[in-house]
């Protein structure tokens, strides 16, 4: 049994880096650092600074269909005058092992050109039979609107390399993301992002979103390291949006996810 936990733990260390950015950004290969959505709370919080209405969303992901693992997330953005406040929750794992994260965001826009954010997270790691450990982390984000079609973004997560207290040899991933998104003809958005984990791995991502009609958006993407292909769609009706995404990796297979969001 101990051996099993060991495997789960090792496995989770590999998978842990994923803060799930919701199915819209996921379907675009996770190249969301320069996109704007309530789900920016899970990728680059500066992306909520442009929101004008209260929005919230809940999402569910099965990393590698067939395993017991899952990710649940919920996000809420609350615009107040020129500020936007955000709250995000995520739980990842299974009964015997889980990682939870709660985040509080403060975002602000300057003249609809520059968007900034600061984010504080509280992390809890639980292994049944072993107890739990806690830590904090900080994230900061920036987006800049070069012209009405062109947005660039920058995001830093946990630059202080915060580690769990209580003798657990695990840390919250530190990463740097940089990206650009370009809109073509109001129907097509192409997003490019590069990501560097301070553990030494780097990734390049390309995502595309195509609004087939006002109600339906189709999405796809590719990331280079590890090589993954992504696809998804979004249905937009009245105040509701339903998004689906699936990621495909040659070895572990498919990771599907779904989310529902509401905008007041």
């Amino acid at each position, binding site marked *: 049994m101990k051996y099993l936990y060991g495997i789960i733990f090792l496995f989770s260390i590999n998978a842990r880096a994923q803060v799930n950015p919701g199915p819209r950004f996921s379907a675009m290969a996770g190249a969301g650092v320069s996109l704007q959505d309530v789900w920016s709370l899970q990728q680059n919080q500066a992306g909520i600074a442009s929101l004008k209405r209260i929005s919230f969303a809940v999402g569910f992901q099965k990393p590698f269909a067939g395993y017991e693992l899952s990710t649940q997330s919920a996000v809420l953005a609350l615009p107040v005058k020129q500020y936007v406040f955000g709250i995000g929750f995520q739980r990842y794992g299974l009964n015997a092992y889980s990682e939870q994260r709660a985040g509080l965001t403060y975002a602000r826009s300057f003249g609809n050109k520059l968007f900034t954010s600061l984010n504080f997270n509280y992390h809890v790691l639980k292994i049944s039979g072993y107890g739990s450990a806690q830590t904090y982390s900080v994230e900061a984000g920036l987006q800049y609107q070069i012209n009405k079609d062109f947005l660039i973004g920058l995001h830093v997560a946990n630059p202080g390399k915060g580690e769990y207290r209580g003798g657990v040899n695990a840390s919250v991933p530190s990463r740097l993301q940089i990206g650009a998104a370009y809109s073509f*003809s109001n*129907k097509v958005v*192409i997003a490019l992002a590069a990501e560097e984990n301070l553990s030494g791995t780097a990734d390049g991502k390309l995502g*595309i979103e195509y609004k087939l009609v006002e109600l339906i958006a189709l999405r796809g993407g*590719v990331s*280079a390291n590890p*090589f993954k*292909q992504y696809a998804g769609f979004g249905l937009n009706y009245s105040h509701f949006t339903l998004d689906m995404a699936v990621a495909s990796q*040659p070895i572990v297979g498919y990771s599907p996810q779904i989310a529902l969001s509401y905008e007041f």
Partner: protein
Amino acid sequence: MSFNRGAIISFLISAFSCNLAFGQTETDPAVQQIIEQLAEELPEDFDFSDLTERLNFYRKNPVEVNRITRDQLQELFFLSPLQIGAFLEHRLSTGNFLSLLELQAIEGFDLQTVQKLNAFVYISDPNSLAGIKAKSLLSRGVNDLMFRYSQYLQQQKGYQQNETDNRRTYLGSPQRLLLRYRYTYGRTISASLNMEKDAGEAFSPPGKIPGFDFNSANIFIKDAGTFKKAVVGDYSLQFGQGLTLWSGLSFGKSAIISSLVKPALGLQPYKSTNETLFFRGLAATFRYKFLDVTTFLSSRKLDAGLELRTDEKPVITSLPQSGLHRTVNEFSNKQAARQTVYGAHLQIRKGNFHSGLTGYHSRFNYDMLPGNSLYNQFYFSGTALGNLGLNYGFTFKNTYVFGEAAYSDNNQIALLNGLMSSISSQVSVVLLHRYYPKNYRSFFNQAVSESSNAINETGFYSGLTVKPNSKWEISAYADLFRFPWLKFGVDAPSFGHELFGQVNYNPTKKTKWVLRYKFEQKQENDDLLNTINTLEDVSRQGYRIEFGSKINKTFSIKNRIEFSNYKKETLRREMGWMIYQDIGFDPAKSKFSANMRLAVFDTPGFNSRIYAYENEVLYSYSVPAYQNSGIRFYLNTRYSVNRKIDLWTKFSVSNYFDLQTIGSGAEQINGSKRSEVKLQLRYQF
């Protein structure tokens, strides 16, 4: 025939203007660029002359833009199915084009496409000379006779006498010779003849009638009565997406994303010097309303390795594809077996929809043995094979959907489905899914694949082209592939992927920048000495920066720097580079033109080799690998002796710093230098 002054004057003018437009390069630079981009993904000496010949024909005999057909647009190759659809749609809905400028108004036609197309079409105005020009050019027969000679200047081992038996490995002389003849009469009749001898092949082999080693000829009739097309002699067949039946020129993954969608040209006369991928016999296409019926019968001798088993009949153990017959062994395989193929193809086309049904039967005169290795045990065995295929394609709004299902009579079905969509005026995507079972069989299968044949592979390709404005063009693709069964050198099921990105930037009409990155990862056997191989990841990366500029009316330059990076898990990383300078000299009114390259390269070995397209004499192609450490130079010249006679030469030399011998086996040269001369003479009358 009445004397028509106007016609003669117009003919003289058009001949003159034609000459001007051509410069001396003959092939349009835009077309040259297309071929270059496609060529670098293909084997080193792939023969593109089919395509160039076709384009040169349309260059000399442009088609009236209001009369050009879908087939002709397809033959131009650089137009995607979506663009062809949009062109025809535009012409139908808004009526005849009044000016070539109107081409820019067609959906999906950017400036570059319009410029390319302009080179092959014209617009007739009853009052201008242009209308008569095309007629006068076409109403007579044109003969085109060409002779090519090439040879390495250093002696290769195969031409020296062995010390043991005083014999030479190669039966023939080191010259490579090609005799090529074309006859065209208008757009209706054409005939072609190719006769070739490769280096090392004998002109008068023992016990055979003296002559060229490879001879190919055909007569082609087009649009005559009930015949849409008919060929007697050598021909190629291209249907659907190439999964069931495709012979001759074929492209796959390349820097041109849209080239993934194959333009099936159906029956075509075979004009290439590739010695394997063609049919020999009779074939014809009939058109009845929206139905095209092609029937074909072919019977030809193939190179085959034969083995005598206990019963007196030999069996086929291999089908060599190189077309080389230099040694006793190669020569004894020459045309050792016979393959007979017959079948038919039915195609319907209604509006934006087309679909085709292909059925054919192929038979050898001997039994073919199954492979005796684990990896090739699913290859074809027996005498006869039946194939059936269904292909489709339709355009819906901004999207072209296409695919093919193919059946081989060992009850295997292979599938290919894809779409191409211009999701905005600046962005287009191509998606393609493929599923080729390990024991799917077809002798004429050239569908999109990572392997050389479309068997034992599944994959998903996604490609993207972005043209934000006329100065920028960005293309990228990602391809995931799996091989469900073993392959040669890969002792387990494996998978891999490929990533490609290219940025073209044309700040002015005369300058061009290209940035390219390519990454490929695959699995293959380890290099350790053990009885059971394990698989290791092998990755290859290429980085390229290119700059080209037309300095003035006479001179142009092109520079390229390319880096390669090879890594196999247990081997040391190999990194190589190459840099070249091309100079083109092409004065507008001169009879003489030339281009040259000086390249310096340094790669630790074969694994980190770098391919680069080289300019050649007309209708000749080469994309050699630059490997080891050295310097390479070539000079191409063309001289138009008069209106009828042209002379080309190429001299090239590679000098290696780190080699004492070049090549291996019978190809080996003692020394560190290898040089080649090539001469080509063309007489048009």
